[in-house]
């Protein structure tokens, strides 16, 4: 038994019927996992990484087709068990899984205690009291204060971070051999993200439990995993120890991914980004699936399926090129001109002592609670400047944005745009001064309107130009934001996230405003698409002389584009200054914790870890 790995997966494929066509979401995925080992599965959305994890846990939808040569966990052959048998014997016992959305992953109508304790049925070996004690022990071990009291609470009474911890505790009730975590920290704030990952690592060591962590964030994977598997469009393009793969990436896609992570850049330089978007595989590709987007593409890449080559012992990749040849990772994008435009002295936007409080009457029985969302905030923004407003969710940055947009009157203080108070500016005038761009590409466009209508709506509303002229202006603006003209009559539902965000930007700039207030414009997008949008914003700044108030929790993005930074915490601006000073020497303690918890791909640390091979940790029977 000792020889065979805990988990063995060979040639796993998943196909999904979509209407009449078949989507090959996962093709020929092969990997193994030792007991207690941690594997990071990385890829952009649509790469099939989550589909693979669901296939393991037998949670695919009813009409999905799962095929594999070998699918084995310990001595259990997963292929042989039907759903009923799998649920009864393995699910929640030998294998467990936690998911991305903590807010909706717990049953809203049962208490935390009920949901945890229903994992193990009282039997001869375990009385109900034992189960309850174990639940309390696990909650405390996971770091949840006052664990006893929590059992009676309901999911909606806990924060996102706490709920994710409850999920983890729940899944560990039966000491599983393998825990699959599908984007466990994506929906959480940066500070909470770090603590959850630390917790997962400790538990892995303590319980000798194998872990598969699925994520789109290379930083998260690089800091915590032993092995890494990079997936693209349903295929495993590169696997191997983290240090080798990230230290010396062989597959062009992995190299492209690493290069496009926003990191320290000087002034206006553009981010390198992989052109095009991830394809949906409705037909089995002949050649290499990355060929259309690969800068080293050769003729045979389009026809023959590349073989699996090995760079070192178990560092494998699927590409025709020989290993270890030094390659230029990405073509340097033509940085048109470093932003010569110095921020002009006259201030465009100035907010003085802005304050706003909400009274929340939450439940039918709960008393009204008043919450100060924005507390005495003063902020100036000069023309051509990009100010980044950084803070975690609940810090009041979105409320401040609505006040600056003039859509919500502040309780105290006033906001001036180009000298006049935003409240008294008539709506049409204000529209020509400031426009918003929102986070979620899905809900920022009216699903029932075509792209042309959405972008053209502001012109139509303001009654300028005839319909023909309007169409011409819309097409020009679409060109400006990099949208092909043929999408004019398409519906948002037919566009990708990135394209939809371009439409939203086009709508915002068509009235030629001076200031764009962007609330988390890229955080809902993939890394590569994120880079394209940031480049677009920088281009527009140079061409149209726009200035931005960029609201985000992603310090990497701030580092890349912002000129000045304002850090917000519980409604107050705790620190304000230009980017380099704040990033290099943060003054306020909160800024320091914020910067500290950012997980970056740290090349030197990886190199160091690559030297001593991952020895077998003794399986400490702590939790018998």
């Amino acid at each position, binding site marked *: 038994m000792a020889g065979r790995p805990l988990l063995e997966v060979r040639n796993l494929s998943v196909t999904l019927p979509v209407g009449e066509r078949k989507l090959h979401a996962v093709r020929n995925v092969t990997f193994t996992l030792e007991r207690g080992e941690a594997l990071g599965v990385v890829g952009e959305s649509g790469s099939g990484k989550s589909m693979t994890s669901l296939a393991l846990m037998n949670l695919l939808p009813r009409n999905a087709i799962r095929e594999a040569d070998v699918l084995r966990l310990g001595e259990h052959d997963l292929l042989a068990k039907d759903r009923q048998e799998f649920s009864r014997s393995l699910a929640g016992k030998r294998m467990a899984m936690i998911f991305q959305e903590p807010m909706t992953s717990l049953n809203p109508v049962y208490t935390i205690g009920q949901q945890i304790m229903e994992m193990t049925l009282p039997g001869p070996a375990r009385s109900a009291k034992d189960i309850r004690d174990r639940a309390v022990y696990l909650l405390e071990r996971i770091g949840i204060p006052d664990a006893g009291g929590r059992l009676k609470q309901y999911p909606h009474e806990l924060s996102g971070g706490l709920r994710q911890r409850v999920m983890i505790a729940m899944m560990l009730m039966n000491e599983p051999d393998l825990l699959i975590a599908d984007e466990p920290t994506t929906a959480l704030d940066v500070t909470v993200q770090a603590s959850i990952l630390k917790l997962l690592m400790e538990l892995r060591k303590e319980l000798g439990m194998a872990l598969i962590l699925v994520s789109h964030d290379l930083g998260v994977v690089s800091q915590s995993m032993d092995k890494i598997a990079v997936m693209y469009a349903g295929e495993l393009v590169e696997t191997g120890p983290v240090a080798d793969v990230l230290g010396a990436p062989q597959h062009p896609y992995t190299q492209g991914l690493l290069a496009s992570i926003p990191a320290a850049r000087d002034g206006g330089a553009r981010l390198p980004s992989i052109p095009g978007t991830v394809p949906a595989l409705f037909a089995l590709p002949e050649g290499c699936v990355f060929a259309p987007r690969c800068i080293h593409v050769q003729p045979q890449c389009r026809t023959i399926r590349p073989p699996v080559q090995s760079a070192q012992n178990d560092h494998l990749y699927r590409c025709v090129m020989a290993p270890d040849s030094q390659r230029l990772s990405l073509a340097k994008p033509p940085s048109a001109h470093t932003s010569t435009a110095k921020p002009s002295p006259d201030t465009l936007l100035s907010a003085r002592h802005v304050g706003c409080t909400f009274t929340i009457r939450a439940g039918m029985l709960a008393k009204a609670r008043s919450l100060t969302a924005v507390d005495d905030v003063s902020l100036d923004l000069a023309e051509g400047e990009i100010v980044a407003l950084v803070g975690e969710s609940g810090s009041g940055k979105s409320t401040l944005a609505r006040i600056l947009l003039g859509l919500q009157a502040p309780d105290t203080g006033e906001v001036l745009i180009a000298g006049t108070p935003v409240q008294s500016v008539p*709506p049409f005038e*204000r529209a020509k001064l400031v426009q918003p761009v929102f986070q979620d590409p899905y809900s920022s466009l009216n699903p029932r309107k075509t792209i042309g209508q959405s972008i053209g709506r502001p012109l139509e509303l303001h009654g300028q130009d005839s319909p023909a002229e309007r169409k011409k202006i819309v097409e020009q603006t679409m060109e400006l934001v990099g949208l092909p003209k*043929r999408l004019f009559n398409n519906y948002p539902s037919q566009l990708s996230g990135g394209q939809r965000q371009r439409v939203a930007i086009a709508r915002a700039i068509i009235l030629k405003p001076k200031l764009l207030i962007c609330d988390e414009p890229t955080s809902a997008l993939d890394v590569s698409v994120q880079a394209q949008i940031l480049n677009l914003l920088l281009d527009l700044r140079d061409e149209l002389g726009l200035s931005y108030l960029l609201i985000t929790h992603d310090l990497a993005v701030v580092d890349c584009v912002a000129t000045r930074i304002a850090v917000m915490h519980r409604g107050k601006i705790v620190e304000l200054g230009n980017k380099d000073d704040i990033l290099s020497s943060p003054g306020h303690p909160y800024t320091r914790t914020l910067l500290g918890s950012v997980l970056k791909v740290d090349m030197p640390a990886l190199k160091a870890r690559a030297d001593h091979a991952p020895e077998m940790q003794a399986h400490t029977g702590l939790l018998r």
Partner: protein
Amino acid sequence: MSEMDLSFKAAAASETGGELLDAAPARPKIWRNILHHPGLMLGLTILGILVVLAVFAPWISPYNPYDQHLPQRLLPPVWVHGGNAANWLGTDHLGRDYLSRLIYGARVSLLIGFGAASIGCLIGVTLGMCAGFFGGIIDRVVSFILTCQLALPGLLLAMALVFLIGPSVGVVILVIGFLHWSYYLVVTRAATQKIRDLEYITAARAIGSSRLQIMVTEILPNLFSEIIVIFSLEVGVAVLAEAALSFLGVGIQPPTSSWGLMIAEGKVSVFLRPWLVILPGIFIFLLVLAANLVGDGLRDLMSNESRR
């Protein structure tokens, strides 16, 4: 990151590579779906037949439904012994041809069905949108009106209106329309509340559109799918309501023929002349069935559409 969204159709099609999907606008897709949604097709065909009957009644029906032949009253249909070929479905109490009255009945019932449903739609959707969008006082006032309408017996309203304005199909439509808008209100109000806080509404405000413009151009188009579904269900409800009102003697006035009135008149001899009740009953059944099938079919279509 909706990649985890369980309904894989949506995730696969929209998230992975938008370019690959054919760029043609969505409309023809809906049309292709209608063709192979059996319930919807059945509903539309039945509705089509009934509309044709109603519109071309004068040319289709063998006799004028109003001229009476007392000696030939209460003839049974041709397949019952005693029936004659002149009147396929026999004659009614005053010797009028039953088939002609059934065909003309389609006119009244369809008119009432669609008329009342439209009035109900108008009232219900406007109130629903205002209540949903503005909330606060307006919401409370609307729910006050709704509770009053539910508590007031429909018959009372029908009697008073028939007395004040006089009996006509128009009054019956008005009465039934006025009594059946609560379903619209509830659904529209809930949908508007959901949409009200979405980002494209804030964006619309930012470009300067007024509240009314937002309601009409941004919110209303998103409600069409639900409204159409309710409209088709309410057509059925309206026809049944007319039948009940006629049954209680406050609905359609003679000599106009409506299926509800024909059942009310024929009901008294149900034991020995069951066809007087069964024939109009079948027609009402078909109309309401068709309306529900169309309603459910559209709902299935719309729900797939919106989730994609």
